[in-house]
């Protein structure tokens, strides 16, 4: 087979430049993927990885540069062209139809049919079983997607590519949603695939994984091509320096905590799941005191979201009690919890945090609009006060926007939207601040800023509950770590004494404090 190949490379993207109004997303980038190799594409959020992949899939057309397949120049105008060239991708957010079976999802778009379009599923089943056998991908073809684990869903996505005989497989941040065990299995699968001659492009910003599985690594930074290195000739430190351009100090400066009274006391909290019939949060108890930051760590989807929903009142509890400042708020409305001193920086700022069609000033008062300073006795809004208040917050928290208070929230950048939410929630002078993934999708500067704000709240004697998926954040920001696994708190760790490895074991459910269980 190798004899037929005229080029060393399966796919080449040469000198790709792609501009958007006001920004060069890809500036003269070159990426060459060899046959049978695992090639990592490394870069921070906004480095230009997704744009480059969109160009490869024909979603965008590059202004400059060419794409070659097996040494021959090709034109890719839409994803169908990419498919025809044998390029397949496992997207970060899976493209699976939830109510379909694994089999249906795999054959969708490429169905084996007889006369009049009648599906011949048994043929497909045979092929799928053979493929799973060959590459070690255990999946039940007749299981419905919504019933299976994230890891199995990902295997379904991989099978989708293999079923179509794709030669070039792209994995976009594939480990973000997996447990360490599943990550290990995925790495093995990737190695198997490469051994069978598939060429793999592995998009990630996790250095350890790249070092573990990739042969070579191409690094992008702020839309520019930084270089391509052999992983066996490099170190994590070197890759990190290439990725961020400077040796960033992720460490957060903070004084030792001065903890006071218990602000939040959660007892035996149980919350139902929206996805499956089991409870998402099972019998969880913990406390948060004044002057400390407690972080709930864990892999995505282990009940953190539901825990927050239960805590803030977005979902009712099945069982258990929530006590804040000595008062039972288990049955209190969202509004009552808020006025009693709970602030909530939500996980999804577009879904919960902002009314995108409202102006910035109207978003600034989203939690306080009913207070007498913003609404008069008859029920009219006090527009002058609202404007003044909003201007004050914009100034104080350095929220940048085109037209100040009257800017539509929709037109602001993600970082500034998040800053606006943080300004709003902190300025409420809460007793308890619940911050859910407050730095998700933000650049390094914004992250540092937000961490400082959290620590400042702690030092002001507030209780802070941080929910985070990022290991760096979990290790650096809080005073205590609680690890959540499958809806339970399986361990409490001191960030000063623990290691990332130990944390990882807890997150994967491989280790748990037996005390907790009782």
């Amino acid at each position: 087979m190798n004899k037929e190949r005229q080029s060393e490379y399966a796919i080449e993207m040469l000198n790709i430049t792609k501009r958007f109004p006001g920004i060069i997303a890809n500036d003269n980038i070159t990426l060459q993927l060899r046959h049978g190799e695992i090639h990592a594409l490394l870069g921070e959020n906004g480095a230009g990885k997704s744009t480059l992949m969109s160009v490869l899939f024909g979603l965008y057309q590059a202004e400059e540069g060419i794409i070659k397949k097996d040494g021959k120049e090709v034109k890719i105008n839409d994803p169908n062209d990419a498919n025809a060239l044998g390029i397949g991708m496992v997207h970060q957010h899976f493209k699976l139809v939830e109510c379909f079976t694994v089999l249906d999802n795999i054959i969708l778009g490429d169905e084996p049919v007889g006369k009049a379009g009648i599906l011949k599923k048994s043929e497909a089943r045979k092929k799928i079983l053979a493929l799973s056998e060959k590459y070690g991908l255990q999946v039940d073809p007749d299981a419905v997607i919504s019933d299976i684990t994230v890891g199995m869903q990902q295997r379904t996505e991989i099978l989708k590519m293999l079923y179509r005989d794709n030669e070039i497989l792209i994995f976009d941040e594939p480990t973000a949603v997996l447990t360490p065990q599943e990550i290990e299995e995925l790495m093995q699968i990737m190695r198997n695939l490469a051994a069978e001659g598939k060429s793999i492009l592995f998009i990630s910003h996790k250095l350890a994984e790249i070092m573990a599985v990739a042969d070579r690594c191409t690094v992008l930074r702020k839309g520019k091509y930084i270089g391509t290195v052999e992983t066996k000739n490099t170190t994590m430190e070197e890759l990190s320096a290439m990725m961020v351009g400077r040796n960033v100090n992720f460490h957060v400066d903070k004084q030792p905590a001065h903890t006071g009274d218990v602000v939040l006391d959660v007892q035996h909290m149980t919350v139902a799941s929206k996805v499956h019939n089991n409870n998402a949060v099972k019998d969880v108890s913990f406390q948060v005191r004044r002057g400390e930051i407690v972080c709930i760590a864990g892999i995505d989807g282990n009940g953190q979201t539901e825990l927050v929903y239960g805590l803030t009142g977005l979902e009712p509890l099945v069982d258990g009690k929530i006590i804040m400042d000595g008062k039972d708020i288990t049955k209190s409305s969202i509004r009552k919890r808020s006025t009693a001193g709970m602030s909530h920086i939500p996980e999804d700022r577009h879904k919960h945090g902002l009314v995108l069609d409202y102006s910035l000033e109207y978003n600034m008062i989203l939690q306080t609009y009913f207070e007498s300073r913003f609404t008069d006795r008859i029920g009219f809004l006090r527009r002058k006060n609202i404007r003044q208040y909003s201007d004050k917050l914009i100034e104080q928290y350095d929220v940048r926007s085109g037209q100040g208070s009257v800017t539509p929230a929709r037109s602001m950048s993600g970082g500034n939207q998040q800053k606006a939410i943080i300004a709003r929630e902190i300025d409420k002078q809460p007793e308890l601040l619940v911050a859910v993934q407050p730095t998700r999708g933000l650049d390094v500067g914004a992250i540092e800023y937000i961490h400082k704000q959290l620590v400042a709240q702690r030092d002001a004697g507030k209780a802070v509950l941080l929910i985070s998926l990022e290991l760096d954040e979990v290790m650096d920001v809080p005073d205590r770590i609680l690890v959540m696994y499958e809806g339970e708190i399986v361990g409490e760790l001191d960030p000063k004494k623990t290691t990332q490895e130990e944390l990882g074991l807890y997150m994967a459910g491989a280790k748990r404090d037996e005390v907790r269980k009782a």
Partner: protein
Amino acid sequence: MKKFFKNEAVQTFLASILCILAGLLIGYIVLLIINPQGAGESIQNIVKNFFTWKRPQQQIKQLGNTLAKTMPLIMCSLSILFAYKVGLFNIGTAGQYVAGACASLYAALAWHWGWLPCMLLAMIAAALLGAVTGFLKAYCNVNEVISGIMLNWISLYTANTILSNVKETASPYTLYLNKENPSSMLPTMGLENLFNGNGNVTIALPLAILAAILVWVILSKTRFGYELKATGNNKNAAKYAGMAQNRNIILTLMISGALAGLGASLLYQTGYMRWECTQSSVPAMGFNGIAAAFLGGLHPLGAVFSSFFIQHITDGGQYVNTNFYSSQISDVISSVIIYLCGFVLFIKLTMKRVIARSEDKKGAKQ
């Protein structure tokens, strides 16, 4: 000039005008297809409506009639747009309007109430009907369009049954208000003098306009309006902010219903129209309210003008040449306008794009 066209309100206005022109054009084409002979004259008459009359006194009197029917239409379109701000498509306005008509007529004819109590009862009855839709939406997740349609038919048959008790023996129509109970008729406060003695023009006129202003104030200046629009734009964020969603949904549909009920009272209590107890379709007023609401750019004050226009061409329909055409051609035009209102977003987007492009070109030249 550029700035002028960039203005959101101006764009909405232009888009509405475009919809109207296209609607009229299609109406004209339909007339041409049916019979080219009288098409031009008929479409002109639709647009002219009362101007078709020769004498100014007649014109002004007919204008009064159009205005009398515009007022309930304003109320119906306010009803639609108020609910739409919260993200609810209250097609049940039509049924709430029927409930209002039924309540006010029955109170007037059977119990001989005065005009104000009748009006209030109409609003209460319609609000209660709205509350049913709201309750089903908030607590049972029933699509408000489907429950609205079902309630439209239920209220129609209920109204037919109830009002049969106060109808003339010889005809399917309800008794004359002015003979049976003049005290239930809306006062004219001398307004009829402005319209050549047309007694159909009553305090309904100032009341409806007042209602439009009130709705505008509530939506744009108050805490309640702030909550409603937040819920309409992003109901998750509204929930997150602790707004009582279910209460707001029910309250909104109750207010929406009350507006429609008031509309019915503003028409039937002028005595201009009587209820036909055998009618087998829901009065079109509520549905025309959809056209007026969207044509008015979903703005309460825009609704006043668009309602007048819709009613104007609806009445204009009676001046078509009935040798070839039927008056429903006006309904065709207004439903085409509703259909085209679905494209308003697209039209505005295109305008923005054209403006942006011309600015780009300018920028390149400089």
